[in-house]
């Protein structure tokens, strides 16, 4: 038995075509584009405010949207990770 992750409304998305294409994709599907993830070029953080900020299940419809978008090479719905100070 594993604890169920808590999914957020954020998606990490790999768009090899770069920031302009990422902006287009975000706009096309109604995501907010929070920009590049740290130093990882071509990786962008999208969020969908229509989606619950915390959910026990991942969003199949968003998965399908991003899976079907040819300019998206990879994506991952973000889920919370338990991290503790030591």
């Amino acid at each position, binding site marked *: *038995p*594993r*604890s*169920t*992750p*808590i999914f*957020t409304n*954020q998606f*990490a998305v*790999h768009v*090899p075509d770069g920031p302009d294409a990422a902006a287009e994709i975000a706009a096309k599907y109604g995501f907010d584009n*929070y920009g590049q*993830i*740290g*130093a*990882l*070029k*071509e*990786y962008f*953080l999208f969020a969908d405010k229509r989606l619950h900020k915390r959910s026990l*299940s*991942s969003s199949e419809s968003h*998965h399908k949207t*991003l*899976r079907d978008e040819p300019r998206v*090479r*990879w*994506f*991952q719905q*973000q*889920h*919370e*990770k*338990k*991290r*503790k*100070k*030591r």
Partner: protein
Amino acid sequence: DFMPSSFSFDYPTFFDEFGPRPRQTTYHRQRNRGVPLQNLFTDPLFKEQWYLNGGAKDGYDMNLGPAWQKGYTGKSVVVSILDDGIQTNHPDLALNYDHQASTDINDNDNDPMPRDNGDNKHGTRCAGEVAAVAFNQYCGVGVAYNASIGGVRMLDGPVNDAVEARALGLNPDHIDIYSASWGPEDDGKTVDGPGPLARRAFIYGVTSGRKGKGSIFVWASGNGGRHTDSCNCDGYTNSIFTLSISSATQGGYKPWYLEECSSTLASTYSSGTPGNDKSVATVDMDAKLRPDHICTVEHTGTSASAPLAAGIAALALEANPSLTWRDMQYLVVLTSRSTPLEKESGWILNGVKRKVSHKFGYGLMDAGAMVNLAEQWTNVPPQHICKSDEINEERRIDPTYGYTLSVYMDVTGCAGSVNEVRFLEHVQCKVSLRFFPRGNLRLLLTSPMGTTSTLLFERPRDVLSSSFDDWPFLSVHFWGEKADGRWTLQVNNAGNRHVNSPGILKKWQLIFYGTATNPIRIRTRQFNPVHSSYASVHYPYPVDDDQLALGHRGDVDFFPSSTFQGYQGYPYVGAASNVQASVATLDGSSAPILTNRLPGDTSSSSSFDSPPSSSQVGDESLDTARKILHDCDPQCDPQGCYGKGPTQCIACKNYRLDNTCVSQCPPRSFPNQGGVCWPCHESCEICAGAGQDSCLSCAPAHLRVTDLAVCLQQCPEGYYENTENSTCVPCEANCASCQDRPDKCTSCEHHLVMYENKCYAACPLYTYETQDYNCAPCHSTCETCNGTAENQCISCRPGLFSLNGACRASCPIGYGADKKRRECVPCPPGCATCDMSTCRSCDDGWSLNEEGLCAPEHRDRCKTTEFYENGHCKQCHASCKTCAGPG
């Protein structure tokens, strides 16, 4: 040491504004060897910093004095604390605060100031350990008290993979050292690590950070000692990219919170048992800047150890800014001391006679030794990665208590290939197994040189899980040993929990990291009068120095006279007239031979640092003064030459490779702005710059990681190797690993399950989740199930009805079909047949009434505890044994 009278600086008063400001003077006083450290620092809590001033048992400390006395204080080194933020205006931090090393991920702005809820003091405390300002009236001193310090606020809110990747990848060309004192829960049952984005951030950091020298990640090994946790089950400390730092008490013992594991590289002092051992003194978070709240002497745990290590690493970086991330690990391995901690058991001598322990790694960090060695250090050769075959033979793990399964493999260390590893650094043993409970297991790995390292100690609290899936257990205990020979893995059922059924070792693999040639070469600087420059001369490490020698003695490579060796100080002859004259005088050669110059040519190059480009020509005045000849090599530019051949040009028409003019730079080099061919990073075949992230194509035996634009010898986790075009392609979303195609997962991210090589949050319809997190098909009658058998249905496919776990087309006598729930439900009492709750026919002695129920035809059908009323048996009042009515 410092002379109080010889310095002055405008120290801000307590009530100054402490906002971001340009870096100010670094605070040194003149060296004055012999003055005790206690007398040097005016900082009121320095006397409480026992770990810096000889205050540990038997007078030990982390030997900061010699490093400081050499003048190393962290100047020009940037450290960032990844935590709950740092108090940027703290009077003991403000002067060293660096906003470029800071951000607030939790609130998405640039200010890492913690939210003052009484709990967000962790990052500020850690920052003070690294870079609290010295020589003031606040708290104590940081280990690197002139380092720039920043903070990332990331733990004061939900953490996810993207949050971690943003923190680990913040400004990697500016930040040198990232210090993290957090991780997955240390509860003794968690196995967790970085997700795909954080893993990419680590890879990007070590390959491209610090302009290619590699970001340095320092990590606290974990506080799970009370739960007998293992730091090898934490994917951050268990990573080759992190310096995993453990703790020792003031008395030189293992503290109660320490986790033992083979990935710990070294230790620093921290808290121990209250009353016996002191804790760590540092700054404290108080947004209101109340004087009695701004310091603490109670910082504790491995959290307090990692920043001390980060501070020492900062001193080493100041001593030698060209250290790579791997150089730093070597320095720690070679200089950490076991002696102060040898009262604690568990030290072993590895195959190259270095003491190492599962508690403390290679021992207590020694700042003085670190900077001394850093000063002389020559970068280690490129990292080679040699992967063994994956052993896929399934082997039974007997459930008997004490049983040990031994398996072995004979390896060559990829001898003869470009991946050859002869001098080991990290060794990973990637294991997939099933055993319930998982926490019973102890895993041991023995090297060809006879060193046994425990990859996993039993974890008594890990009683609900049963598997490791491709978990790469790391050991640093084989550092310096040879790779080739027989490696033995033992899987031991060592726990106290009763085991019902055998387990399976499904597969295992060894991954060796290291070098083909001796990595340890120290350097002395010798002045070359001809070239007016220093040249590096490399010597083998002293063979009589047990503290530092890594073994393989007598098998030492001097630095090869590479084509590119010494390009930074290469003696360019002819670029400037004074140099030409100097060369002519020293080597006795004749005056330069000059060609005709084109009208309008002007001289532009005048220093060693600016070699001539194809457009640069000689000094106008020389033209008329010197004899003009016309037999220079075609690769010489119009300035002419000293003689025949492309090595005699005054300046090159195109590019310069060593002292030869060439028409184009050869493979594995690139022309710099001055037209000199400089070497590409060793992983590049064609490149646009010197960094690992500047490859345009990859060197032989390297693979291009498509999304990170770097070349590596092996694909990292989460990528598959496309052998057709030698690339590493990221696996599809949610795959932890994949094969042949991005969408053919071979394992899934931690929380997901796999079905037909795809990863899902839950098993799809008609399948169920197995113990090893795969989805297996249900019986053909089931819609959902908990096993493959016919009677393990949880719900049925449309048109079928469930009864006792099996699905059937119709319900038996005494049961009615609930079409909505697809279940056979028992008929009401007295019904022979029914349709859900409505009886269609009744048992003998019962008759169907207008409500669709069967009522007993006689009162003698009722039980003794019931009474008869209107054709129904009804329950007596609770206080009655028998009754005639409801009262």
